[in-house]
Structures are given as structure tokens and as C-alpha cells.
């Protein structure tokens, strides 16, 4: 039988607000343990949560960017369970009445374009962290992360392949980062994903028994885990077995999913509306306000780049992968006025340097102005493209503007016909054998003479001029 996977993803994204969701503590990552805590996030007796309005606005941004309907009234609920990283014994989350529902995102894979539904987006607080001491039978509790705001984005079970899942995740990730509401760092856990996976015979309407996958902390792992889990379920079903509904953890080193101990998942969370918080009312005016702050989103930007700069779809895709990169590219174009060469230099040389250094465009030593100016210098004929290859490397290394380096190194292209003609005459005179061979029909040797000229001029000669002059001189017999 042929089986079709049915996948739904749940994404948790940490919001980049300055303070936590229900108190004034800093929400920053990486501080000394328990230094970002107060009686409220420590869950001390008698304290009360007060909702951070910015959290609602950040969540609304994501809701609007993913075409969700924002509910005019929503509320918070308590999710009750005991764990030492959860100081109140419950997590404040949204349950029956989430902030936003019924959205979608469009993704593109090799199989084509597809729309994937979003069930809901809701706000909640993060839990703390346990730090286990390997030498002692004890654990420490760090509550800095307690109360850091999260949104949970629950997707519809519309995904049919691991590849589609990865594309969907990338789209959500890109959108969150573009909105500047999440730093998207998967390793630090600011963007986390769980997956529900089931299989059904192709053509069947009803869903099969699903498993829930956790512990996948990169796009690659999500795709690998899903691929593994699909194969695992397929194997069980093909051999006449039944899928057990359970939570499974992805084991990165072994490359497989393993069942979580059932004790850890036997939860009845006893959700009920949190009586310490009031309902959240969102009116049209507030939605419009938030809408007006939305930046141009990746898809829109991509289409505009193709239209406005007349660059290929592939280039537009690469250049809009992140907002700072797109901004950089646009700044380069603004200086040089040459969109396609700008795309080539940014995507080719610059991104290669950055990738090699695992660096970010935001800290790139070559400013957009400098790169734009460099492209202008090529267009004006001051330097050759070949010279620019060296120049950009030097610019990246030193952070100096192109003109300073050109001056320092005397890199200006030789465009003086007389001077170049003299050099060529000398080369021809020094290579009589090659000249004879060339003239007897070995055209390939033309390249040899070009190379010799370049060498003699240390690459500073204008290539077009070399071609012209060489042709003239070699062909006159």
C-alpha cells in the first residue's frame, strides 16, 4: 500500500520584548542564574501577574503577517503541572480563547507552491531551566527564563512531506525575524518546534494514529526526524503493526526517534481561565495601529526586487533571506545604480567571505557605500573586474573604502593606449615562436598573449583595451 504522511507543526517563538510577559524583569538571554527574577516571576505568595502590552502587539504582528483573524476578546488560562522550573505550579498560557486564529502561510518546494493553514497563535510564558550537577545527586533551578514571553504557532495538519515541513518552518522563521519580534536562534531555544506525524493510505480521508516528535533543534534535524519517523511508521504499517500514540524524542547522534517515558507525558493540565488576569480586548483601532508598523515582508520584498531591480527570482530569494541583507543590497544599488552587478558581488564574493567567517551582514566590514562605490569604479572603467576581485578581498580584510586601497596599491587600470601598446610590442617581440604559431592558425594562443600582458601590467590593464590592441598587432603581418 502507498502511504501519505500527515504532518502538523507547533512552533514556540520567544519574543524579543525588553521585559518579561507578566513582570518588569529583563527578558534577556545569558545573564547570571536567577539575576533576572523578582517575586512575580518567582511565583512568591500573594504576587500577581500584570500583562506586558508589547507582548500582545508582537503577537498581533505575527498574526497579521500570517493572515490570522485576531479575536476581539481573548483570555489567559492556567496550565497546571508540577515541575521545579515552573515556580507557580502552573504556566500562564492561552487555551479556549487564543489571541488569533485561522491564518495561513504560502510555501514553495520542488513540488510547487502550497498554502499551509495556521490553527492559532497564542501567547504564553516560558518556564525556567534546571541545571544538573553531574557530580552531585542534585539539580539547580535557574528562573531567568521564567516569564519570558512566547508565542505558540499551531499549524494545521496540511503538511505532506518532510521537505514541506522544513519550508514551512523556514517561512515562519523568516517572518518572525523580519518582524523583529524573535531572534530565531534555534540553538538557544528562541525558536522551537514540535511535530505531529501520522500516516494514512493515499486517498483515505481520516487521519492515522499520530506520534509527537520533540527535541529537534535545527531545520535540518526537523527534516531528518520527520524523514525517519515517516519511514518508521511506514515500516510498522507495512508489516501489519499498529502505531502507538506517544511522544518521541529525536536523538541527533543516533539519527532516530525514541519514545519518551510514558510517565512524563501522562498529564491532565486542568486548564481553567486565570482569575488573576482580565480578558484581553483588541479593537480595530489597535489592529490598525499595529498593522501600520508592519515592515515589508519577505515575499512582498522578493516580488518587488524581481520587478524593480529586474534580477532573477533566485537572486531575489537569496537577497531577501534576511532583512539586513536585503537592506544592504538595496543600499549598494542606491550607490552604484547597477542592480545585477550589485547582486552578483553581494551574493558571490561578500556572502562567501561572511559564510567562511560565520559572520553576519550586520557586522560586515565592507559597508554598502563602499561596495557600491567599488561597482561604480568598475562601471567607470577605473578598475577591471579582475582587479575588483582582489580589491573586495582587501576591503573585507581592512574595512577601508575602495578608493583608499586603489591609491595605496596603485591599482588604477591602465587605459593609456600608447603605454599599453608599448608593453604589447615588447611581449610580441619576446615571444617569436608563439607569434609564428598563432599566425599559422593556432588561435588559442591569443589567450596566452592576453595573460602575458596582464602579467606584465600586474592586472591593471583594461582587458577590453588589451584585446583590441593585441588583435590589431597580432593580426598585422
Amino acid at each position: 500500500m502507498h502511504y501519505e504522511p500527515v504532518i502538523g507543526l507547533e512552533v514556540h517563538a520567544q519574543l524579543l520584548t525588553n521585559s518579561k510577559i507578566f513582570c518588569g524583569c529583563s527578558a534577556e538571554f545569558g545573564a547570571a542564574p536567577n539575576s533576572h527574577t523578582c517575586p512575580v516571576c518567582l511565583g512568591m505568595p500573594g504576587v500577581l501577574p500584570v500583562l506586558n502590552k508589547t507582548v500582545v502587539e508582537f503577537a498581533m504582528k505575527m498574526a497579521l503577517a500570517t493572515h490570522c483573524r485576531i479575536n476581539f476578546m481573548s483570555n489567559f488560562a492556567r496550565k497546571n503541572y508540577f515541575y521545579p522550573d515552573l515556580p507557580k505550579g502552573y504556566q500562564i498560557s492561552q487555551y479556549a480563547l487564543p489571541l488569533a486564529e485561522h491564518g495561513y502561510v504560502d510555501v514553495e518546494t520542488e513540488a510547487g507552491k502550497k498554502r499551509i493553514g495556521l490553527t492559532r497563535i497564542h501567547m504564553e510564558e516560558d518556564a525556567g531551566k534546571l541545571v544538573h550537577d553531574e557530580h552531585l545527586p542534585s539539580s539547580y533551578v535557574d528562573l531567568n527564563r521564567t516569564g519570558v514571553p512566547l508565542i505558540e504557532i499551531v499549524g494545521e495538519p496540511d503538511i505532506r512531506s518532510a521537505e514541506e515541513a522544513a519550508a514551512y518552518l523556514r517561512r515562519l522563521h523568516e517572518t518572525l525575524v523580519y518582524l523583529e519580534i524573535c531572534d530565531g536562534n534555534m540553538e538557544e531555544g528562541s525558536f522551537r518546534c514540535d511535530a505531529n506525524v501520522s500516516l494514512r493510505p493515499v486517498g483515505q480521508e481520516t487521519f492515522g494514529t499520530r506520534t509527537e516528535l520533540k527535541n529537534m533543534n535545527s531545520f535540518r534535524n526537523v527534516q531528518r526526524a520527520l524523514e525517519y519517523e515517516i519511514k518508521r511508521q511506514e515500516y510498522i504499517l507495512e508489516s501489519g503493526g499498529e502505531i502507538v500514540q506517544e511522544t518521541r524524542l529525536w536523538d541527533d547522534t543516533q539519527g532516530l526517534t525514541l519514545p519518551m517515558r510514558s510517565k512524563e507525558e501522562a498529564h491532565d493540565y486542568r486548564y481553567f481561565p486565570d482569575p488573576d488576569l482580565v480578558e484581553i480586548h483588541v479593537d480595530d483601532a489597535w489592529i490598525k495601529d499595529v498593522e501600520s508598523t508592519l515592515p515589508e515582508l519577505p515575499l512582498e520584498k522578493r516580488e518587488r526586487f524581481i520587478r524593480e531591480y529586474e534580477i532573477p527570482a533566485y537572486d531575489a530569494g537569496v537577497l531577501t533571506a534576511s532583512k539586513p541583507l536585503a537592506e544592504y543590497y538595496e543600499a549598494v544599488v542606491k550607490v552604484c545604480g547597477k542592480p545585477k552587478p550589485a547582486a552578483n558581488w553581494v551574493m558571490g564574493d561578500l556572502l562567501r567571505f561572511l559564510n567562511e567567517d560565520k559572520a553576519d551582514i550586520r557586522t560586515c566590514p565592507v559597508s554598502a557605500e563602499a561596495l557600491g562605490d567599488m561597482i561604480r569604479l568598475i562601471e567607470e572603467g577605473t578598475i577591471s573586474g579582475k582587479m575588483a576581485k582582489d580589491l573586495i578581498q582587501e576591503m573585507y580584510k581592512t574595512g577601508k573604502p575602495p578608493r583608499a586601497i586603489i591609491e595605496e596599491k596603485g591599482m588604477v587600470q591602465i587605459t593609456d593606449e600608447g603605454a599599453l601598446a608599448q608593453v604589447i610590442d615588447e611581449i610580441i617581440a619576446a615571444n617569436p615562436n608563439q607569434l609564428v604559431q598563432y599566425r599559422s592558425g593556432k588561435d588559442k594562443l591569443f589567450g596566452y598573449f592576453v595573460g602575458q600582458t596582464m602579467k606584465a601590467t600586474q592586472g591593471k590593464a583594461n582587458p577590453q583595451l588589451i584585446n583590441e590592441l593585441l588583435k590589431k598587432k597580432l593580426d598585422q603581418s
Partner: protein
Amino acid sequence: MELNQLTIHALRDKLRARETTAVAAAESVFDRIDAVEGKVHAYISLMRDEALKTAEDADRRIQNGDQGDLCGIPVALKDILCTQGFKTTCGSRILHNFIPPYDATVVAALKQVGAVFVGKANMDEFAMGSSTETSWFGVTRNPWDLDRIPGGSSGGSAAAVAADECIASLGTDTGGSIRQPASLCGVVGMKPTYGRVSRFGLIAFASSLDQIGPFTKDVEDCAIMMNAICAYDPKDSTSVKADVPDYKSFLNRDVAGWTVGIPREYFQAGIDPEVLTAVKKAIAVIEAAGARCVEVTLPHTDYCVAVYYIVATAEASSNLARYDGVKYGYRAENARDLLEMYKKTRSEGFGAEVKRRIMLGTYALSSGYYDAYYKKASQVRGRVKEDFDNAFRQCDVILTPTSPTPAFRLGEKTDDPLQMYLSDIYTISANLAGIPGLSVPCGFSAQGLPIGVQFLAGHFAEGKLLQIAHAYEQRAATEKRRPAL
């Protein structure tokens, strides 16, 4: 009269007139405590040193012209209200050593106006009880009869005022925990509208029902305390941004032409005949003052106790989850793993009544039962509110008994939780509806036990309660007795 026996306003007048000092008043209160606390046990802990220091500060303030009603007045706090740097136990072993690093908003407000804190008053553990018998720190006795309970859960706060071990006190009321002990101890007790007084720093029992309020020796004092504690607080999302009137302005105003609703359902089986007689007398006094008494109906009254014990226990089961031995308070020794630490800590740290309610609430919220219990109870709660909305279209205030009986004997109901729960039958509805209520003394039983009458009003109409209670108090001229301790 000794200083400790005075009302707030009488002591304030003496302080203003420099006839006495705040230090003398505090010393008088502590002398009384030394004399009778062994019998009454109104307090869990005393703040003797702190009190004398703040009394000195208050005297300086008064010398510098501070005209505040509460400057230098000795006040007791229910031990459910967090006091910065001072042990706050909630009557529980699980918090026996807990020292909050913050003040409850009401505590800070009273500090601000120069009140002198005497001590932390005893209470039922986590305010769960109607008799102050479930405290980890032992029972409080009724100053009028030491074999009887003072009511609860704010029994310590009520007994301290009744026994003149303070001038006034604060308690909390989740289902009657201010009004019922006020009635049983013969003092005035007020539960304000939900949202009127900040709950920040009040250790939660049932968040949607809890409200802080005063115990005082008369209605005028009640108005003074209300002025000090009512305010919007940005630290409590459920606190309401509504103007707070000067509650003293409602005193000495007549109630001629008012309509007073007498709810039929509150005068049926179960009411003690002596209570009924006293309350009927109170009705006569109100009528003599020019108010018209009419029968009103609150049709969902029968459901109130059931609804209350679902909503309150459900919220409590979640509110009390934080007492897990991890961060503060009691932690059981010698647990082998995390689960055992939780189990032992909570088994040893909580008393029987608290455990009963946590289990009830956990059950009511469990998957498969939520709709039948919690959700249904929330719906009925809406109906209870509507009942009051309808009733207040016909009347200014409602008058009922506060408690079906005078104080019962220690141990009388400890083995019968249902009987215990029924002692709040007249007070619970106000918490469910979020409306204010006030209990004022209206006489004594043949055995000399105090009886109280309750007034209820619509949301934020505390002024009306003070107006009619003060009018009643002035006209009734209830015999001024003091408990013979």
C-alpha cells in the same frame, strides 16, 4: 476607658489633642495582649518592637501636624497579608518560616498613613475554614465565650478587635471570612466590592473571590479604614480604576425613603430563632429610620454553597501548587527523588482541610469533569450575579442575617465539613457576585453571644452600606458590652 478599648476616631481625637501618645496607645494594646492573649490566642506573631518604633515615628508625625485618621493607631493584620521582612505564615506549616521581601499593597498603604502594626492575626490555614480551628498555630477562641470559636477564617482579626487587643484590624473575605467572624465576635466587618482593594500581597486562596476588608469597633471606624485601603493598584490586574469617594461622607446621613430588600430565601429553615429575632428587631429599627422594607427574591441562593465550593476549591488547587518545597517555606527532609519531595512536603506541610479542598478542586478541574463542575459552576455564578442585579433594581440595599447561628463550640463542626460550610450560607453569595457586604452587631443571644446583621449593596456602593449601617448603629443603640475576659 483604657486606650486599647477606644475606637479609631476616639483615639485619634485624643492623639490630636495631645491627651495621649501613640506610644502609650501601643503600650496599652500590648499590656492587654499580655493579659488576655493566653486565653484568646488571636495572634500568630506579635510585632512588639516594630510597633513601638513606628509608634514613636507616629508621635513625631503628629507633633509635626499629621492630621491623618490612622496615624499612631494600633492595627492588626491577618497573617495572610505579606509584610516585608516579617514572617507571613497564612496559618500554615508550609509557610511557617516565610519572610516576604515585599509588602502587600494594603500594608504599604497603612504604613504610609502612619498606622502601627501590632501583629499578625491567626486564621484558618490558607483562609480555608469558618472557625479558625484549622490554623497550624492552634485555635483562636471567641472572647465572649472561650469555649466557642470566633468564626473564620479571619477569626484572629475579629477576636483581636473584640478583645481590645488592637483598635482595628484587616482580614480577608472569600466566602464570608470577614463578615461571619465579625458577627460572631460582635464587631463591624466589611467586605468591599471585588476589585476595590488591591489583592497584591494577599496570599491567594480563591483569586476571583478574595477581597481584603476591615474589622472595627464601629461603623465610623470602618469608613476610616476603607478610606485608607481602597485604591486602584496597577500591580493587581483585577483592581478597578474607579473613583474612591470619601467614605466618611456617608456617615450621619439619614436613610429615610430608602428601600431595603429582605430576600425571602435568607429567612427559611436553618436559621437560629435568636438570630431571627435579633435581625427582625434590626429590620424594625431600619423601618423606624424611615426606610421601607420589601421582600425581594434571589432565586439561585440554594446553589451558592455548591457553586462556591467548586469555584473556590478549583482556584485554590492551582493557587496552592506553588508550595512545593522548591523555593521557600517548608521542605520535607530525606526525600529520595523529586516526586517524593513534592509528596512529603505537601503531605506534611498542609493540614487536612487544605488537602481536602485541593483534592476537591483538582477533581472539579479534571479532564472529563471540567464541564460538569467548574464550567457549570461559573455559569450559575453568572445567574447569582443577575439575581442581585435584579434585586438592586427594586432596593437600595439588602438586609440579611450574617450567620445562621451565633458562635458554635470548638470542635463542634470540625468532623462535619458540610455543616461547617453551611455557616457561610448567607455570606457566600456576595463573593460570587463580587458585591460589597457589611456585618454590624445587632444584639446578643440569651447566652450573651453576639449576633450580626448583614447589609449588601451593588458593585462599588460601599457608601450606601456605611450610610445605612451607621444610621442603624446610631438608632439601635445596641447595648455596649465588653467581653468578660
